[in-house]
């Protein structure tokens, strides 16, 4: 048993690859970590930021229970039903008080440590009016774990004038199956920025978070995916522009090498003067891959402006030749171009995160024979 604990400790120390810093190298406002179904870390360094397991939160605050399945329909699919049927709540509760603006990111991590473990989680995030928080969530499997399941319902409440930047970095095992179900209530004048980064092999990920926007709310979903070695991604984002002057952007940048990628985007413009745009750029690296972009726009109001654009192609021979003419070998030149393509997607990230993701992309693009 002791041996196992030490191994877990070691594995957790290596989770900085998904942004979870245990060495104190970067400033964090708090941490939350679940290994399999055990919460091993739950702490906040800020008075205004409350972090605890959700199972505690429902006991401490009587209103928390009402939030469960208030945004995600418990009957939506087999996975939401599975979360709803759990006897024991496992997952995080993150609460930021009114007006609190916290610069250092709060980090959370959902980690599969046991081979074949089925992790079932429910997370609640609440930002009170005019508060600001930056969350980095890393999801990963242990070094020796190839198989496992991660099923999670995450409901986020970003209240009036609040701002949540939510970054998720996935690094799953080759046979892991991952089914997150998330929904976000974005209040009046509130902002929700989501960054999703997945650069390593996985069996299957299926995710399609949905944001409901009130008046003057704004949402951005930004995804960078490098599908490889038989991975299958069915990713999407939906934005329901209910309020007046609400706006959203759904942007994906994906590279596919022997993998199947589906990128969905759904924008519904219901409120007056709403604006929505979706964009997907796909790079196909071999004949065994596919990228499918499925944008869907629905306008219910004459004063809504919705648009989409998508492009899918291969590495341009002209660029490859250009780099090779400078003495780069073909693999290095290809890796540089893949890296460049994916890095175009991180331009809007916060500076410290940009550096981190930049490094991850560099490793992902160069660590294989391309």
């Amino acid at each position, binding site marked *: 048993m002791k041996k196992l604990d030490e191994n877990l400790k070691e594995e957790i120390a290596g989770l900085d690859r998904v942004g979870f810093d245990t060495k104190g190298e970067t400033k964090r406002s708090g941490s939350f970590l679940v290994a399999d179904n055990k919460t091993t870390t739950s702490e906040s360094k800020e008075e205004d930021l409350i972090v605890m397991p959700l199972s505690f939160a429902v006991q401490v605050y009587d209103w928390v229970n009402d939030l469960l399945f208030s945004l995600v329909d418990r009957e939506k699919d087999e996975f939401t039903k599975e979360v709803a049927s759990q006897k024991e709540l496992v997952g995080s509760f993150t609460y930021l008080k009114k007006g609190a603006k916290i610069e250092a990111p709060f980090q959370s991590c959902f980690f599969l440590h046991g081979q074949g473990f089925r992790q079932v989680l429910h997370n609640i995030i609440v930002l009170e009016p005019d508060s600001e928080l930056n969350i980095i969530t890393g999801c990963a499997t242990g070094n020796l774990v190839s198989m496992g399941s991660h099923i999670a319902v995450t409901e986020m409440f970003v209240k009036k004038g609040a701002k949540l930047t939510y970054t998720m970095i996935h690094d799953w095992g080759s046979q892991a199956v991952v089914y997150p179900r998330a929904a976000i209530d974005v209040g009046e004048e509130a902002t929700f920025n989501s960054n999703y980064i997945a650069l390593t092999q996985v069996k299957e990920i299926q995710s399609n978070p949905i944001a409901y926007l009130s008046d003057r709310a704004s949402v951005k979903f930004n995804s960078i995916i490098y599908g490889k070695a038989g991975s299958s991604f069915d990713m999407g984002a939906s934005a329901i522009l209910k309020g007046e002057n609400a706006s959203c952007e759904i942007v994906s940048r994906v590279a596919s090498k022997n993998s199947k990628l589906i990128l969905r985007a759904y924008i519904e413009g219901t409120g007056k003067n709403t604006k929505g745009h979706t964009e997907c750029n796909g790079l196909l690296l071999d004949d065994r891959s596919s990228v499918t972009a499925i944008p869907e726009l629905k306008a219910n109001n004459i004063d809504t402006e919705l648009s989409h654009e998508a492009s899918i192609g291969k590495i*341009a*021979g*002209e*660029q490859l*030749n*250009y*780099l*090779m*003419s*400078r*003495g*780069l*070998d*073909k693999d*290095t030149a290809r890796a*540089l*171009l893949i*890296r*460049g*393509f*994916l*890095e*175009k997607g991180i331009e809007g990230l916060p500076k410290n995160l940009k550096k981190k993701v930049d490094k991850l992309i560099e490793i992902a693009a160069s660590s294989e024979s391309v």
Partner: protein
Amino acid sequence: MSNIKKGSILLEIKNLVVEVEGKCLLRGLDMVIEEGETHVVFGPNGSGKTTLVNAIMGLPEYKVVEGEILFKGDSILDWNLTRRAKAGIGLAFQHPPVVEGVSLGVLLKTMVPDKKTSEEIARKINMEDYLEREVNVGFSGGERKKDELLQLMAQAPQFVMFDEPDSGVDVDSIKLMVKIMRKLLQKNKPIRERKNSGIIVTHSGVILEEIHADKGYVIVDGKLLCSGPPLDIFDQVKNYGFERCIKEARESEKAG
């Protein structure tokens, strides 16, 4: 013919025939360039000048269907771009492509892993502000040309080709570019110590005043029509256009 005789041939082209997408663009061309020499190629648009330098560089769409290219005595026809570049052949492209997402700094660092060296090179030619920028993205014509020279400085080839290095470049920048080209061609070294050679494809005589070349050629319709002292050839082209050269070539052909 050259006034620099050192006897060491760097590049030799024999009866070179090049096709692009099945269309013949070079029809049997011969050239010998010795160590330390700079040759200049003139010709109207579409005559085959760019085809020549691209074929030497080894761009895959330029298919050598006949003839030979020897570099330091070895045939390079089977060598890919990387091998040619590593062997010491470099090209400043006429129309370099944009490379989105790849910053000039990252490219230089990949070419020259020692970061200090690439930064120093950039500083030398006042391009350190460009290191963070994506290669050629949003660059003006002149900036692209300067960027080409910066990359060549990092590559440091022994045989360097400049395809229209001065087109679209303002007068002030030309001075800087000439300085870099001279350095790449080792024009500042005593003649006997020069090892680097090159080809300049140009329309302009301005560059020739600053970079003395050893030999000039006129290519028309994929054929080398005349050769001689570069400034004389340029004078002819300036005063009479390419027509005179074409006429002379026809007459000499008739004369047998």
